[in-house]
């Protein structure tokens, strides 16, 4: 049984169908990359998996560790081990990063029937992860993402991921807006989290990220369907040729 099984998934937003029959299996230990032209449905797929209510699933089935993911609330999916690093992390004034993250971790621990972690044990854990992402310790007491640069926000997402330790991590265009140094740091953080128990899905436009985090599988989305799948070499091909060469397949998808 795969960790994530997506079967014939159709979803729409504002009555417009975006996903038109996605089929995908993701196993623990694998790193997948989802690529494709703008509007192909990559981010929609990520949001649907995270159970964002704005997206309506009209058909299909998704099993996450054998459980019906589509029946879960966003917080249930999170507690079951699904994490999404957002493309545009929101700012929340008045709540510190560390307070927020501890509350989130404790909500997940509670869900799993574990004891809450207190501040004394939590702070060293957080500091360790922040060090990995080369974030200044002072960020922990600052309000969530408030006044952070684009790169700092993305790094903060990976810190959260490292603390929450999900079994399935989806990185939604985590590389966009990062300079080359930040990209290296973020990649380092993600690579450190590769493990046989965890699957990682990277939604991206660029090969650049894949130079640092080498995927096991690359999928090309077009018109709401996966039109081509392959290994890491597929991404290189896309980089060289653009999406034009998949036009025939694209036409088939429409």
């Amino acid at each position, binding site marked *: 049984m795969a960790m994530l099984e997506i079967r014939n998934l159709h979803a729409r937003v504002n009555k417009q169908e975006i996903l038109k029959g996605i089929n995908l299996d993701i196993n623990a230990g694998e790193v997948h990359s989802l690529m494709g032209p703008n509007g192909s449905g990559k981010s929609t797929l990520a949001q649907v998996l*995270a159970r*964002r*209510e*704005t997206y309506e699933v009209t058909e299909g089935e998704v099993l996450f560790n054998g459980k019906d993911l589509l029946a879960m*609330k*966003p*917080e249930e*999916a*999170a*507690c079951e081990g699904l*994490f*999404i690093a*957002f493309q545009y*992390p*929101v700012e*929340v*004034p*008045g*709540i510190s990063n560390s307070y*927020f*993250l501890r*509350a*989130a*971790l404790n*909500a*997940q621990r509670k*869900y799993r029937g574990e004891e809450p972690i207190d501040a004394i044990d939590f702070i060293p854990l957080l500091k360790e992860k922040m060090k990995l992402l080369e974030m200044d310790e002072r960020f922990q007491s600052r*309000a969530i993402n408030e006044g952070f640069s684009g790169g700092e926000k993305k790094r903060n997402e990976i810190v*959260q991921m490292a603390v*929450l330790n999900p079994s399935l991590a989806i990185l939604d265009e985590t590389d966009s807006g990062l300079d080359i140094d930040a990209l290296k740091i973020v990649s380092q953080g993600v690579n450190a989290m590769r493990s046989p128990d965890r699957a990682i899905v990277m939604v991206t436009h660029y090969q650049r990220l894949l130079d640092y985090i080498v995927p096991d599988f690359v999928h090309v989305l077009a018109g709401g369907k996966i039109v081509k799948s392959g290994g890491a070499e597929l991404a290189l091909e896309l980089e060289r040729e653009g999406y034009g060469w998949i036009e025939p397949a694209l036409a088939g998808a429409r």
Partner: protein
Amino acid sequence: MTATNTIEEFANQEYKWGFVTDVEEDRIPRGLNEDIIRLISAKKEEPEFMLEWRLRAFRHWMTLVKADAEPKWAHVTFPQIDYQDIVYYSAPKKKAGAKKSLDEVDPEILEAYSKLGISLNEQKRLQGVAVDAVFDSVSVATTFKAKLAKEGIIFCSFSDAVKEHPELVKKYLGTVVPYSDNFYAALNAAVFSDGSFVYMPKGVRCPMELSTYFRINAADTGQFERTLIIADEGSQVSYLEGCTAPARDENQLHAAVVELVALDNAQIKYSTVQNWYPGDKNGVGGIYNLVTKRGKCAGANSRISWTQVETGSSITWKYPSCILVGDNSVGEFYSVALSNNYQQADTGTKMIHIGKNTRSTIVSKGISAGHGQNTYRGGVKIMKNATGARNYTQCDSLLIGDQCGAHTFPYIEVRNSSARMEHEASTSKVDEDQIFYFRQRGLSAEEAVSMIINGFCKQVFRELPMEFAVEAQKLLSVSLEGSVG
């Protein structure tokens, strides 16, 4: 469920203090005239000076009624109140010859207070908080009175103070809020029934928190309490008040007056958690909370701090203020005001700087949800002789959903060029993206909103005494329960 729904549902909550206690009432006829005033005064066995003061206030109020001088400037709308349709005095009936001790309090009333989480039994009470319990028009019990008396502290019902300490009442009553101050203050002065009285003797630091718990129980009545706190030279006191009322479809009037006097080097901290019945989710029923609260820093180096958490009432009209007369005196106002469903709140403060080097701080946090309308109205006046005066004002608004409103009306008047004024304001919105962000990390929508609100309010909450801060946080989350599903 759509995204917008999530936020709208956030505004539907149940008021958990809406029960009615079945007690036999001693109530007077409906309506208001000089005979009614005489009757109230007689019921309370008041000395002559008190009755005369009431009558002067009543006559003044009548001129205001004739002049149609009921304030209309606040950003609230409600139907004209029929002042002849209110019962101005209702008290739970006492057993014959009962003296005011806890054993004599009607068990039904004790039960009502314990339902509200207030134990009037001194042994069971949390140490460190003395309570005066006001039930409709009368104070039914005051705890720790004897213990406080040992320190020379007078903490009793206003009615008892009028009888037992008439010289103090005579000296200070109406010196901060004269009966001629405004329409509702005049009405209160004429008909006020009970409230708390505190006198802190020179140099004494109050060993415990003093508090009053106001409960409206009877129907068709108004509650008109009057509280007077005097902190003599070098004394310090922290006073808390809490309020609840049954859920009824009719609106009820609550027009209170609070006067604080701080003499040289004295400090008064006055905290309120106001949770009167706010009306139902369609705006039916609820308390009209039309209140005048003012403190006078009469002495040098004195300090008065107001902290309020206003979650209840359908209409709130309230501006706890400070008159900074003494040199180097300090006035503070920390406020969280929540307007949910169809609640309307027009609240803020006035800081009048008269003495030299007087300082004031205003931190106002307004939260609007549902169809709520929340207004901050503030006045800072620096008078001619207030050399070196300083004010810092911060007013922040938080909007939840897109049906509500937040408004700010800061008035600043400076007549001394040495004054330093700072004013900061912000408006923010709890949006779906924030809530989804929290949920994706494993927190429920309620937890998300509660954390966001508490983060927004923490500057004010940290001014509250510890136990109250916890209560206030709980209250806010309950008041917003169901707004996010």
